[in-house]
């Protein structure tokens, strides 16, 4: 039973355009969501997070949107740059319950120059 789903295994975007990575979750107890970025042969690095009391969080070129009723979140990268090419993992937890992060399978983003 996959609680966090990233249904697109890969995404290709032209440099300068917007990248939109999607994530769906099934556990209504999740109240904290994170995105991690992973380059080959490296560990994931934290990118941006959002708690369930918000519907949007922005950090530079990265914005995360949360739609609680749809149990859906998305990561927008604009403008996309070649250095953004990586695997992006969505993760969720019940923060107040101190539960471990549950990760999606990841989406491989390729930004084409």
């Amino acid at each position, binding site marked *: 039973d996959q609680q*966090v789903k*990233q249904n697109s295994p890969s995404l290709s975007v032209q440099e300068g355009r917007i990248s939109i990575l999607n994530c769906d979750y099934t556990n209504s107890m999740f109240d*904290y969501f*994170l995105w991690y970025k992973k380059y080959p*042969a*490296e*560990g*994931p*690095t*934290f990118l941006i*997070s959002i708690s369930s009391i918000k519907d949007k969080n922005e950090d530079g070129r990265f914005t995360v949107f949360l739609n609680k009723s749809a149990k859906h979140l998305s990561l927008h990268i604009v403008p996309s740059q070649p250095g953004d090419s990586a695997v992006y*993992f969505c*993760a969720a*937890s019940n*923060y107040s319950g*101190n539960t*471990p*992060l*549950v*990760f*999606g*399978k*990841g989406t491989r983003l390729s930004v084409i120059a």
Partner: protein
Amino acid sequence: GAGVSQSPSNKVTEKGKDVELRCDPISGHTALYWYRQSLGQGLEFLIYFQGNSAPDKSGLPSDRFSAERTGGSVSTLTIQRTQQEDSAVYLCASSLTWDQETQYFGPGTRLLVL
């Protein structure tokens, strides 16, 4: 400063053998986590240590898996009688406290069980 380090970076073993994977967290980080990523899968939580508290072992897939953390610092993940399905990248992360946002990951140990 030094990040999270893991050793070995790669390990090839035969089915049935035991393996030990090591994680050196960032100095001063009280929380340490083990995850694994199997081919085509997301990161799967295995076990979590917070200070001197009993570890959260809820993610360990079988009793062949165990982990310890000595002196609140270095951790060792042990897999006994390895099976081919244990082949994966094993990632360690640490954080200052239980703080989901700032988990710092090591580069991982790639385990291949033949």
